C-alpha cells in the first residue's frame, strides 16, 4: 500500500473512531424567558407513562386542563425515558418540552444543580402555594435540592409488603410479619424447593430482584447516608451494617446467592402479567402501590394482602413506615413559555380534583395533603395500606444528591458483591464505598 493510502487509511480510521464520540462532548446553554400567561400558546409536555390505562388517565387530566385554560393547548408526548429527557433539556430545539415529568426522584439534585429545570420558587410564591404545607412533607423534600426547588411532586409511590394469602394459609401463617426476624421465619416457611430450584420461594431477597434495591431496604433500617458535613456515612452507621448482614443472612437461609440468582433470572418481566408474585412463584414481594392494581388486572387465582414492610426487631415502634418516591414535575429552563407552563404544572400537581382522579386512575398515592383527605379517593383496603405508609412520619426517601443517586448504586454494588460472597470484609467494603461516594460527589459538585 503506498504511503499516501496508508496515511489516508489512518486518518479515516481515526475519524471513524472519534466522530462517534466527540460530538458527545459539545453542548449548548440557553437562558429562560418571560411570557404572557394569558396569551394563546401551545405547550409541549413530556411524560414517562406508557401503559394504555396510564396514558388515557394523564390525557384525561390534560383535557380537563385545556377546558379550564382554553387559551393553552398541550401537546402530550408519552413514554419518555430519563435519557431522552436529559438530552432534550440540554439540546433544546423547537420540539423540546416545556413541561417535563420524571419517575426518577434521584435525579432531582442533578436537575436543580445544573439548572436544567427552572426555579419554581417565584411561581409558587406568586400563586401563594407553600410546598411544605401543600405536599406531603417527604415528597416536598425529595422534590428540592439544598433549598432550590426545581420540581414539585405529581403523585407519589409508597413501598410495602404484598403477600399471597393462600400461601400464608398453607404455611399456617396468620398475619403479615412486623419484624425482620418474623419475616425471615415466614420466608423460610413459605419456601418450597424443587430439584435445585424452587416450586415456591418465600421472598426474593437478592439485590436487583425487581424492587429489592438497597434504598428500599435502607428506609426500613433508617440508614443515615451522609454525616453532618455531607460525607458518606455508611461505614459509621450501624444501620447500614445491620442491613447488609441481615440481607446476606436471608440470602443464605433461602438457599444461597447462586441458587436464588439462577431462579431470579428465569422469572417473568416485572411489568408484565407473568410477574413471579402473580404466578405464585414468589409468595411475598416488596413493591409499590401499583402492584395491587397490576395484580388485580392479572386476575390472580388467589387472594393477596398488603402490609407495611417489616422493620428491624429493635425498631418495632416504627412499624408502618416505608420508602417513598414518585413522579416529579418541572419546567424546562430553556422553555420560552414558563408562565403558561406553570399553569399546567400547578394544575396537575395541586388541583385536588385533578390529583385525586389521576391517583385513582393509576393507583398511585396522592402527593397533596388535600387530596389525601378527599372522600373521592379510592377506598380499596389494599391501596389504602400504601396511602397510610405514605403518611407515616418515619417514611422517607433517600437524600437528594448532585449526581443523580450514584451513591445508591455504589452502595448496592457492594451489596451484590457481599451477597454473592465476592466481598468478605463488610467493614472494609463499607469504607471503600464511602470513599468512592465522596470522590464521585466531589467530581460532580
Amino acid at each position: 500500500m503506498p504511503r499516501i493510502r496508508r496515511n489516508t487509511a489512518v486518518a479515516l480510521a481515526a475519524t471513524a473512531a472519534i466522530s462517534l464520540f466527540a460530538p458527545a462532548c459539545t453542548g449548548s446553554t440557553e437562558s429562560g424567558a418571560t411570557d404572557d400567561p394569558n396569551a394563546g400558546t401551545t405547550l409541549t409536555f413530556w411524560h414517562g407513562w406508557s401503559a394504555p390505562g396510564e396514558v388515557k388517565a394523564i390525557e384525561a387530566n390534560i383535557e380537563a386542563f385545556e377546558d379550564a385554560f382554553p387559551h393553552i393547548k398541550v401537546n402530550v408526548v408519552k413514554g419518555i425515558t430519563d435519557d431522552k429527557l436529559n438530552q432534550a433539556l440540554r439540546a433544546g430545539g423547537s420540539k423540546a418540552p416545556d413541561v417535563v415529568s420524571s419517575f426518577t426522584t434521584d435525579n432531582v439534585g442533578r436537575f436543580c444543580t445544573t439548572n436544567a429545570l427552572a426555579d419554581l420558587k417565584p411561581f409558587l410564591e406568586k400563586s401563594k402555594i407553600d410546598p411544605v404545607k401543600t405536599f406531603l412533607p417527604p415528597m416536598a423534600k425529595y422534590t428540592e435540592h439544598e433549598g432550590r426547588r426545581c420540581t414539585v411532586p405529581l403523585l407519589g409511590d409508597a413501598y410495602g409488603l404484598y403477600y399471597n394469602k393462600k400461601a400464608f394459609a398453607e404455611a399456617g401463617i396468620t398475619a403479615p410479619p412486623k419484624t425482620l426476624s418474623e419475616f425471615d421465619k415466614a420466608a423460610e416457611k413459605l419456601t418450597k424447593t424443587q430439584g435445585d430450584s424452587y416450586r415456591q420461594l418465600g421472598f426474593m431477597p437478592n439485590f436487583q430482584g425487581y424492587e429489592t434495591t438497597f434504598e428500599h431496604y435502607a428506609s426500613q433500617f433508617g440508614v443515615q447516608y451522609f454525616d453532618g458535613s455531607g460525607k458518606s456515612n455508611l461505614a459509621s452507621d450501624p444501620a447500614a451494617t445491620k442491613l447488609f448482614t441481615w440481607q446476606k443472612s436471608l440470602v443464605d437461609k433461602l438457599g444461597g446467592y447462586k441458587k436464588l440468582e439462577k431462579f431470579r433470572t428465569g422469572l417473568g418481566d416485572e411489568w408484565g402479567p407473568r410477574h413471579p408474585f402473580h404466578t405464585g412463584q414468589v409468595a411475598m414481594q416488596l413493591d409499590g402501590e401499583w402492584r395491587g392494581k397490576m395484580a388485580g388486572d392479572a386476575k390472580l387465582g388467589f387472594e393477596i394482602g398488603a402490609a407495611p414492610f417489616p422493620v428491624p426487631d429493635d425498631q418495632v415502634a416504627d412499624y408502618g413506615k416505608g420508602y417513598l418516591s414518585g413522579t416529579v414535575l418541572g419546567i424546562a429552563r430553556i422553555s420560552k413559555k414558563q408562565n403558561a407552563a406553570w399553569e399546567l404544572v400547578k394544575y396537575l400537581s395541586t388541583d385536588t380534583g385533578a390529583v385525586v382522579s389521576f391517583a385513582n386512575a393509576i393507583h398511585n398515592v396522592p402527593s397533596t395533603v388535600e387530596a389525601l383527605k378527599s372522600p373521592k379517593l379510592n377506598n380499596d383496603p389494599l391501596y389504602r395500606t400504601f396511602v397510610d405508609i405514605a403518611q407515616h412520619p418515619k417514611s422517607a426517601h433517600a437524600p437528594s444528591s448532585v449526581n443523580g443517586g450514584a451513591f445508591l448504586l455504589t452502595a448496592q454494588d457492594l451489596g451484590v458483591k457481599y451477597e454473592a460472597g465476592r466481598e468478605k470484609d463488610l467493614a472494609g467494603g463499607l469504607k471503600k464505598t464511602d470513599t468512592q461516594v465522596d470522590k464521585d460527589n466531589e467530581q460532580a459538585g
Partner: protein
Amino acid sequence: MSTVHPGLRAKRRKANLRTLGFLSPWLIGFSVFFAYPLISTVYFSFMKYDGFAPPTWVGLKNWTYVFSDYPFFWPALRNTLWLVLVMVSLRVLFGLGIGLLITKIKTGAGLFRTFFYLPYLAPPVAATMSFVFLLNPGTGPANTVLNALGLPEPGWFTDPSWSKPSLTLLALWGIGDLMVIFMAALLDVPKEQYEAAELDGAGPWHRFRFVTLPNISPIVLFAVITGVIATMQYYTEPLVAAKVASGVIGGSGQQFEPGYPDRTTLTVPQIVYNLGFQRFDTGAACVVALVLFALAMTFTAVLMRRRSGFMTAED
C-alpha cells in the same frame, strides 16, 4: 536568492488553487467532523461542563478523576481490550473458517450461506435479547441441553467469568458479514496458483499457507482493522445483555448501573455515555473519549506498520 519567472509563478498559483479546489470537500469534512470535534474534546477535557452552565477551567481534575477515582474506567478499559484481542481474533478466524468451508463444499453451499448470514441481519437489540433468552441459566434451552448431556451449566450472561465469552459467542453467531467478505476473497484466488502448488507437492496446509493466505492478506488486514475499530465502539450488545440478564429493564424510577454482572460487560463507549449523558459530566466523558481515540489510533497505526510482513508487494 532565486528568481521565478512571473508567468511560472502565476501558473503555480493557479495549480495550487486548483488542487485546493479539488481538496476542499475533504478539507471541509475533515475540519467539521474531525478537527473541530477533536479540538473541542481536548478543550472540554480540562473543563467542568454539565451542558447547561458555561464551562469552567478545572485543569487536570477530570483526568485525575477518570484515571484514579472513577470506578468504571479500568474495568471498562480491561473489558474493551479483552474483547479487542479475543473477539476480533475469533471473529476473523471463524469468519475465514466458515468462508473456507462454504467455498469448498460441493452441495448445500447455498443453505450454509443462508444459515450463517441470516443471524447477521437481525437487529443488534433483538439478536442480543434472543441470545440472552437462549443462554438464560435457569430456563434457557442451551442449559437444558447441557443438563440433559450431563455437562456443567454455566451462568452465561449472569456469571462474571462467562459474560464476556457469552458476548463473544453472540459476535460469532452474527459472523455473516465477514463470511461473505472472505468468501469473495477466497473465490478470487487464482486457480492456477493452486494447480502449480499441487504440482510442487503442496498439501492442503501448505496450499493455504503459501497460496490462499498471501492472496487474501489485504482482506484479513481489513477485517482486523475494521474489527478493532468496531469493537472499540462496542456499545449496544453489552448494554442490552446486561440490562436483560440483570432483570433491571427500566422500572419506575429504577436506575441501572451498567456492566452487570460485576462490571464485566462494561465497555469504554458505555462509560462515555454514562459520564456524558447520565452523570452530566462532559469533561470526564471527553477524557475517556480521548483515551479511546488514542487507543484506536495506536492499534490502527501498529497494524498498518505490521502490514509489510503481512501483505505482498502488489498490495
